[in-house]
């Protein structure tokens, strides 16, 4: 830990004391320029300080190590070390900067004393973090006076270095994409594997969805090889707080782990404000709303200042008032714009600012040297504030930051707290401000602060059921070492493995049998076909037009069609690109990007059809029948629209993407609406009419608008329960279900071939997701029956968000949740129902 005593004092703050936060939440509001304050502080929370809980080092470590360690471990570190000593795997799920590195760092130190040949494999999510951790571990071992060798082994490691690291390093740090490749040369790792005692998976919560299933299979592959060489490692997983740490550890590694989640690290008092941007007509007259036009008669507008304007101002205020702060933005461009806005704001005549506030932007576009410069100025206190992308979310030491401002919700609770937690290190008091943008999740959290403050965190989803991905990794495994029947326990069980082997023999990929050993029949490297971010092998290379290499991971077909069609804008590491070419008429399909600088973003709309559904499981939810299983989904992202960045104003619609429909066999769940409920809701809302839906029977606009809205709302809130990217989910509401055309209902499907396990988890957590969807529909501040972009509307909607009808959606959801609202209104039940059902017109809306 750096000592702060020698740092020069600055006018803004000094960081030698511990309780000198310049502004509390209350003081922020009091000092905010009164003509700018319109009650933005919607929620004020003070989180109390937690004191540290220590365990004397000599109780958990051998005496010589304990003597050299100048701090006592926190209780959770001690607990984890104890579990490791007892032979258990551990999953450490504690807060940001709670010293998780020390858990495995000290475990390795302890083992090294016994056996200087001990080896440990550390898997980090990014290359940047790897270098950071290498430094941290080296510092630890220097302090302990141990000659533990640490090496980073990844794409940046030089050839000569590599063999030295394989031969000598006690600790090898790598990432999953690299690991996937290095497994093939396992004979070169023989000594490492046979002495491997520890596998560490850092930031394990990051491995969820598609990349999670790849990570899980890669871990099974490495474990099998280590077994072969006689190693027997324990696992350490570190993770942010997630809802299912034990289950997640088991899914990733295939082995049980003791969960350590009693956090012994200290924290200072924290003031947290939810800062809702004021109405547009607050009379600023500063031109911040220029570009807003009145042409949008059908377009609904939130009537609020955008968070992209409001957040930089709050941030500027904090920095000016002596609270050194980070502003978290979503893109590189936004960090630059934010600094500009903040400076403008501080210079606004009539506002009481001192004109000496030093602000800077920080993002990966700045180059290493300039970034180091910013980091150092931040640490030394020469800067009052930094606007950053997620680049400063983890890892890099930011020094004595007192404040954090979030421009928008970062998408998961874990990331929310991670960003917030960058201020107030150790026991310093801290100030944090969340400025929600006008999007579904942001608005939900603004209305339900308990979601981030109190409730169970979301669950990570790792699905091993996806057979295309399973087959890919089996091919790799068979190429690495012949597959035997003994491998069944690790690779899907005997039946599934047997079927997969037979499949591979028939397609010509496998030779041999499980009795004698199944080998890979070709001479290529199946590892090259693995792409952590896609399923099923068919992937597109992402190129930068006219340039040799571009360090963008390949993308799956579904994502290419959806977000990388010609004309799409792509935001990558904070930079804007336009897709200029999508080619798949060649062995290696690719998309080519060109840098661009435009003020709009694009979004494709999809048309969906679903058929050949196959029920694997069913259960009742209220009077509804809920099914989970497989189906064939055809998705056509045929058109796209352009919207203005910031305001979201529509610039153009109906532009052609040029991509063909994509058919996939995937996992889905669907609810069947009981006929009487359908009748009741239809009747109750038969008056509703939407002019944009001429092709739908007029009487059904209300009901179909209801189930369509339910489908949208459930997908929108799914990320609140599960670590899913809503873009990987799709939906369809239909008047005639494929296998039971006499019934209506709605689907939620996984947007990749073979499925992701998301719809499966939604099937299991249906009530919880439905409840959140209901809250979203009923609580939204728009108060519109047809919803707004923050509740019912979806940019992806293939039907231009028509019809959507909140009152019918509420009725459907309340009946589903057993709140019984609809039965009260269904006294006028129709008698000619049967006759009507026979004439049920087909109508599907995605």
């Amino acid at each position, binding site marked *: 830990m750096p000592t702060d005593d020698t740092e020069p004092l600055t006018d803004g703050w000094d960081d030698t004391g511990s309780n000198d936060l310049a502004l509390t939440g209350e003081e922020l509001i009091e000092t905010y320029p009164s003509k700018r304050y319109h009650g933005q502080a919607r929620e004020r929370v003070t989180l109390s300080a937690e004191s540290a809980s220590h365990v004397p080092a000599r109780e958990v470590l051998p005496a010589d190590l304990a003597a050299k360690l100048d701090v006592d471990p926190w209780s959770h570190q001690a607990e984890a070390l104890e579990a490791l000593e007892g032979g258990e795997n551990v999953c450490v799920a504690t807060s940001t900067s709670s010293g998780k590195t020390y858990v495995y760092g000290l475990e390795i130190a302890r083992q090294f004393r016994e056996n200087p040949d001990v080896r440990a494999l550390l898997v980090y999510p990014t290359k940047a973090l790897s270098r950071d951790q290498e430094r941290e571990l080296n510092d630890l071992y220097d302090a302990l006076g141990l000659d533990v060798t640490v090496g980073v082994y990844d794409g940046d490691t030089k050839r000569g270095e590599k063999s030295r690291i394989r031969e000598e390093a006690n600790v090898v740090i790598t990432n999953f994409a690299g690991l996937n490749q290095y497994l093939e040369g396992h004979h070169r790792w023989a000594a490492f594997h046979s002495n491997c005692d520890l596998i560490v998976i850092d930031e394990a919560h990051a491995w969820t969805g598609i990349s999670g299933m790849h990570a899980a299979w890669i871990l099974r592959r490495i474990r099998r090889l280590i077994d072969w060489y006689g190693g027997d490692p324990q696992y350490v997983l570190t993770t942010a707080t997630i809802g299912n740490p034990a289950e997640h550890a088991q899914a990733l590694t295939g082995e049980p782990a003791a969960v350590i989640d009693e956090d012994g690290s200290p924290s200072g008092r924290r003031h947290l404000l939810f800062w809702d941007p004021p109405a547009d007509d607050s009379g600023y007259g500063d031109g911040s709303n220029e570009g807003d036009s009145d042409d949008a008669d059908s377009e609904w507008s939130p009537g609020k200042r955008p968070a992209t304007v409001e957040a930089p101002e709050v941030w500027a205020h904090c920095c000016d008032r002596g609270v050194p702060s980070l502003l978290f933005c979503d893109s590189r461009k936004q960090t630059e714009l934010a600094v500009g806005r903040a400076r403008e704001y501080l210079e606004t005549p009539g506002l009481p600012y001192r004109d000496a506030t030093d602000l800077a932007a920080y993002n990966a576009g700045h180059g290493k040297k300039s970034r180091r410069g910013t980091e150092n100025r931040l640490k030394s206190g020469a800067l009052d504030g930094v606007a950053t992308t997620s680049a400063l979310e983890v890892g890099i030491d930011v020094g004595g930051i007192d404040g954090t401002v979030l421009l928008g919700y970062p998408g998961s609770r874990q990331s929310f707290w991670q960003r917030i937690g960058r201020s107030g290190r150790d026991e310093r008091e801290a100030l944090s401000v969340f400025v929600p943008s006008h999007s579904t999740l942001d608005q939900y959290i603004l209305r339900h602060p308990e979601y981030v403050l109190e409730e169970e965190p979301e669950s990570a989803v790792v699905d091993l059921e996806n057979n*295309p991905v399973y*087959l890919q990794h089996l091919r790799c495994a068979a190429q690495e070492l012949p597959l035997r029947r003994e491998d069944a326990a690790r690779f899907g069980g005997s039946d599934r493995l047997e079927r997969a082997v*037979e*499949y591979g023999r028939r397609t*010509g990929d496998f*030779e041999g*049998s499980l*009795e004698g050993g199944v080998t890979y029949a070709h001479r290529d490297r199946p590892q090259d076909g693995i792409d952590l971010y896609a399923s099923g092998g068919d992937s597109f290379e992402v190129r930068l037009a006219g340039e040799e290499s571009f360090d963008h991971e390949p993308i799956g077909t579904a994502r290419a069609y959806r977000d990388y069609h010609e004309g799409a804008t792509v935001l990558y590491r904070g930079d804007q690109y336009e897709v200029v070419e999508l080619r798949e008429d060649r062995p290696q399909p690719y998309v080519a990007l060109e840098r661009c600088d435009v003020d709009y973003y694009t979004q494709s709309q999809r048309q969906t059809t679903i058929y050949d559904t196959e029920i694997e499981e069913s259960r009742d939810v209220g009077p509804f029948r809920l099914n989970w299983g*497989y189906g064939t989904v055809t998705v056509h992202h045929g058109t796209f629209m352009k919207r203005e960045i910031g305001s979201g104003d529509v610039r153009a619609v109906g532009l052609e993407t040029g991509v063909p429909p994509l058919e996939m066999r995937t996992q889905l769940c669907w609810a069947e609406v009981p006929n009487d409920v359908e009748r009741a809701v239809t009747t109750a809302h038969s008056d509703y009419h939407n002019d944009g839906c001429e092709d739908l029977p007029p009487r059904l606009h209300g009901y179909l608008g209801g189930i369509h809205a339910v489908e949208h709302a459930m997908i929108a809130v799914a990320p609140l329960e599960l670590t899913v990217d809503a873009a990987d989910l799709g939906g369809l509401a239909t008047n005639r279900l494929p296998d039971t055309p006499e019934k209506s209902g709605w689907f939620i499907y996984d947007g990749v071939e073979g499925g992701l396990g998301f719809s499966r988890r939604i099937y299991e957590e249906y009530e919880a997701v439905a409840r959140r969807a209901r809250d979203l529909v009923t609580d939204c501040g728009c108060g519109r029956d047809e919803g707004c972009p923050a509740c019912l509307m979806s940019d992806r909607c293939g039907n231009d968000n028509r019809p959507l009808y909140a009152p019918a959606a509420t009725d459907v959801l309340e009946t589903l949740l057993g709140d019984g609202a609809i039965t009260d209104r269904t006294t006028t039940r129709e008698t000619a129902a049967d006759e009507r059902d026979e004439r049920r017109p087909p109508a599907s809306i995605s």
Partner: protein
Amino acid sequence: MADEVGAELLALRCDAVSDLGAAALRDVLEYFDPDLVYVVRESADVRVLSRVRRAFDGPVVAASGPADGRTETVAGVSFVFAGSAALLEDALDDAPPADFIVCDDIEPTTDAVALEATLAGGKSVARYHVRASESPTVLTGALEASYDHVWDATVDGRPVRLPVRGVAPLRRSGAAELACLTCDRRGSVAVSSVPADRFGLRALAGVGPATAARLRENGYDTRAAVAEAAEPDLRSLPGIGATTARELAQSARALAGSEVIRRTDESVPPAAETATPLFVDIETDGLQPTIIWLVGVYDPARDEYVDFVDTDPSRDEPGAATREFVSWLAAEYDAPSLVAWNGHGFDYEHLERFVASYVPEYRDFWREHVSTYDPYDWAVRRKNAVLPGRTNRLEDVAEALGCERAGAAAALDGKTLAERIRRSLEGSRSRRSDTDESTESPSEIDWDAARGYCEADVRELAAVYDAIVAAPPERGDTTAENGDESTSDATQTGLADF
């Protein structure tokens, strides 16, 4: 190849040979010397097809032709060509039973999500089998020549076995590999293959399509013409620099004169004054071995061949031969220098792995006292020499240097041996009545033939090694192009050799 072995069927896919000029195409046909050429349906191109027809004076059958059945009998082996699977059911009632059916409709239909694979057209073939009361092997251009699977089908309640083999060129990074199938009357097939870009002028090192075109434009139509040209004349051609010209000349001389051309003055490792090489070869059960069942060693100093064979190979002790070999090695030699062809790519990798896990007590000896050398790596990957032979596979190089194999060893190849071992390992333990054929010839391994094969192999290796050593080192041009970059590049291209 002797005719009694069977019919030679060369299968081409138009896109794999579309870049070949007339001379190169003739070179292909001369090299494989097929009895019959089959052009598969995928990527069919009439222009290429016409060129093939003009270049070959035997039967050329195109899958993209009219949808009719056709029978060809060459070298006593009969082939039925069917434009569609349906034809097999109807139109061929009066046709005599064939030894092979060739039909590109036959291929697996897959559903990876459900892990299901079925054989498209399988029903039609099965009915044909039943009617003909024979089991001709099915050849299909829809699959690569490495494909070999026996499908099971049922017709009217009767089980039918359908052996299916692919014929299409093998996909690789770089050029596809053309496959020639030796088909015998009993329905069995042996495959030999060469990358499509090793013919004509392209067989010369460093000659891509552009350089080949340039050479042709300037009157160098054949490799012989390039071999006879003076280096300065080659250098004077537009777009050909000093380095390329030298490479061209060396490579043409190597091929034309069947000799090794050294490109650098690097001495061939291991240096003769410090060590005597021991030539080794291992036999396994495949590319990712589960067992090493034979290790053959030839010591030229003693002129002695020694081998360590596990004649009762079992899953329980896959390292038995490795153990014998390593303990012998440690007893006989203080610091042995092993030489293996592509050893760095295969033999050493697996020996090291087997030593580490089955004979761990010798691991330190292996790591500290055993030196390993790989003349293939030295010559080809590190570009120190140009070898004669169409490919750089040991048998091709040795054959070009004039080492002919004789007797039983000539009728064997490593892949076949590996396949037999695998069947034997599976047969000895298999509970499943997988195939009735595999029970009739499960452990029919002729150990003497296998050892003979291995001995021939290491002796060939010694001969090739000697030829490399004997070739005069290149003078003057001392800059060996064996930097890191070229090594890693060459590893890619080198893959095609094995």
